[in-house]
């Protein structure tokens, strides 16, 4: 009893503290977990994995985004990263070649049996941790400042399948918990980080007459509910893009794939 009483007091204290906190801050406190299948800090990606993502895109496209096209996108992860003049190469054991990059930093990957056989890498000439990658899946005809939810659902699925998210520990370690990528993207509260074109002020979902503005904890990598975010940022591939990040209720099927995601940017007029 002499040993167990202090322990029970400790537990009671913790429980009391938890209850108090629950009253003060009842919202979910999840950190902005960014999912990935690897914690590898390198800037390069596996050609095979990226093709795997392309295959998955073709499989899921009829379901989520029948008219969409897939491109890959390079994004800065560190301030000062020169995003122009990037040399992107596919490098195998017996060959290498350059992949053209568009002015918006997107590119397509050509299927290549030799690169698959040689387990080639896709690598930009930038130092490790200086950049990150995403998919860019767009249905043509949608106005500027909007995205189609089905396209973004598919971006999550293909992005995870292709292992594009570049996080390091501790984000990477946490991410390894999420081995079922498809189910992760179907979660109502999926924390897959999307990046808008410019710094965001507001994100709104619109489907028919239904309209809903996302709460602030779905913007800025949940910075509103995470006072420690600043210290975690070096581990997140959102490090210099925090003001452009947003989460979406990907698994909430009350929002159809044709839902319009509208962006209001910081630099637009009031």
């Amino acid at each position, binding site marked *: 009893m002499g040993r167990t009483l202090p322990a029970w007091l*400790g537990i009671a204290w913790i429980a009391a503290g938890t209850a108090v906190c629950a009253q003060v801050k009842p919202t*979910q406190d999840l950190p902005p977990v960014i999912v990935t299948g690897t914690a590898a800090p390198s800037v390069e990606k596996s050609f095979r994995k990226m093709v795997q993502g392309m295959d998955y895109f073709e499989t899921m496209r009829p379901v989520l985004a029948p008219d969409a096209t897939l491109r890959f996108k390079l994004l800065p992860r560190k*301030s000062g990263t020169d995003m122009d003049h990037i040399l992107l190469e596919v490098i195998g054991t017996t060959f290498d070649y350059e992949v053209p990059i568009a002015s918006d930093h997107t590119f397509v990957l050509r299927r290549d049996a030799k690169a698959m056989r040689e387990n080639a890498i896709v690598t930009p000439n930038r130092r490790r941790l200086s950049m990150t990658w995403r998919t860019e899946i767009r249905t043509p005809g949608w106005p500027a400042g909007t995205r189609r939810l089905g396209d973004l659902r598919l971006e999550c699925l293909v992005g995870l399948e292709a292992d594009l998210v570049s996080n390091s520990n501790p984000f990477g370690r946490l991410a390894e918990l999420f081995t079922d990528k498809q189910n992760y993207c179907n979660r109502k509260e999926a924390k897959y980080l999307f990046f808008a074109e410019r710094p965001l002020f507001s994100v709104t979902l619109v489907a028919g007459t239904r309209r809903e503005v996302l709460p602030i904890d779905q913007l800025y990598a949940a910075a509103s509910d995470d006072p420690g975010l600043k210290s975690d940022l070096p581990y997140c591939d959102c490090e210099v893009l925090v003001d452009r990040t947003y989460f979406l209720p990907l698994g909430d099927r009350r929002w159809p794939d044709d839902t319009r995601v509208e962006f209001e940017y910081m630099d637009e007029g009031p």
Partner: protein
Amino acid sequence: MKRKACIAAFTASLCVACASSPNTVPQGHGTILTPQSALDMISVGKSRKADVSSALGAAIVIPFDSGYEVWVYRWAGADKTPRSATELVVLFGPSGLVAKSRVRPGYAPSD
């Protein structure tokens, strides 16, 4: 010993979590303001951080490297979730003046 250290660390982390959850419901002269009345106290292009802080009290502050800063005031909703909360969001430009402001309505769980 390890157990004591563990409990102490856990307790400390709980306290940090509590301390980091400010009451962000705007209060003017001791009374709780409605979202619209709080919004009305802000002038885009005119109000400074000190003006907003003085009128509405402490906010959740999200600073960005660009110099922009977002302030958030919250009114808890029925089920205490972020989705049900009403929010007043104020954007300060690098100049320190309010660049934009908006009220986000809370949504009922059944919406």
